[in-house]
């Protein structure tokens, strides 16, 4: 089963926790000071890190959807 990661840009406050946790999947957009997803459909080997990013987001802005 595949899965996808997304960030709600309205909820994101640029704490950058996700980028520090999983730089393979997230990056900071310095212009607007918010995080973006660089790899929306990561490999399964990155699943644990993405789940860590979900629970570590101070504004609950990240979600994982099963496809």
């Amino acid at each position, binding site marked *: 089963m595949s899965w996808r990661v997304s960030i709600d840009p309205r909820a994101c406050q*640029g*704490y*950058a*926790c996700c*980028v*520090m946790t999983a*730089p393979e999947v997230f990056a*900071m957009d*310095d212009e607007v*000071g918010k995080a973006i997803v660089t790899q929306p459909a990561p490999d399964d080997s990155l699943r644990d890190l993405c*789940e*860590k990013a979900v*629970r*570590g987001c*101070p504004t609950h802005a990240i979600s994982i959807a099963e496809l």
Partner: protein
Amino acid sequence: MRRVVVVGASVAGVHAAEGLRDSGFDGEVILVGAENRLPYDRPPLSKTALVEGLAAGEELLRPVQWYADNHINLLLGRSAIGMDPGRRVVALEGGENLGYDGLILATGSSARRFEYPGSDTLVHLLRTAEDCERLHGTLRAGRHLVVIGAGFIGLEVAAAARQIGMDVAVVELAPVPLARVLGDEVGTWFQGFHERNGVEVFCGNAVSHVERTGAIGKVHLRDGSVLAADVIVAGVGSVPAIGWLSGSGLALTDGVVCDAYLRTSAPDVVAAGDIVRWYNPLFDEEMRIEQWTNAVEQGHYAAQSLLGLADEPYSAVPYFWSDQFTARMRFVGRANAAQHIDVRQSDEKRLVAAYGRDGVVCGAVCVNAPGQLIKLQQAIAGRVAWEDAVSV
């Protein structure tokens, strides 16, 4: 293991309960909280919630349905007052004894009290949602605020009160705000930033006494200054909430002493969050961290450790943030005992500084500079040599 009790229903406790379910534990989970409300998030209490008020339900860590869906039994408004690791029971206020097979301690911190004769109803502390609701109303109705202590909570309260439109003065014992944590250069930047936003900052000073005339107080400082105050907030640090464990026989030293896997000195008892004192191998240092991100990760990890599923010792690069006016401050790593500090950027809006010790880069503070933060965090996690970090 059939029943796990989690004592403390804030961020570490909720993530511990969630971690138990994520790890496949299908026994009974009881989450005990001293406050009589659903577990909520604390960081906004000194920021947006203080300015705008606490919107109903907005700051909940999890919606109420989540607890039912995950079969987590909430026991709220019940303080734990003791535990007996031999009999495997937690004593609750009111006389009930709660048995456990596994126990996760996550009782967090309490605000340190600071009282002056005659000032009892003027001095507020800020730790809980109830404190925030009370203080929000008081600040809205007030004109002159005096904040005692220029730590992060004190400076955030000062910024919130300025946004509400109050006159604000901050009194700090140390010569520079935040210096104990971040050093003089960075502390001086924060002082200037607050002064540019209309906050009066009195450093190297202290309150000698508070004079009360009706609803208005006068705060007398050691140097003879007198500040009007209809509200006083004391932000003078916090203490680990471990008083209830004093008769338990558990090893306690400024927190609960834990091993590399967050196990306490008692069998099948682990700990998470502000109360944990453990050896962090990434920094070769025994530490206790009072930070949101640490509470999330230790909560999750402690659940795995209790179930025997933690493969690696717990290690982490500490991270915390503070939002004051337009300054989005993010701190990563450690700055204590730093031998080097390199202020890379310092202007009215931005600040970037790196800290080094034992030959490696160990910490960084960034204000409104998220790109720099990421680069320095990676250098800290990778233990990059201080000389090489200059080019990061």
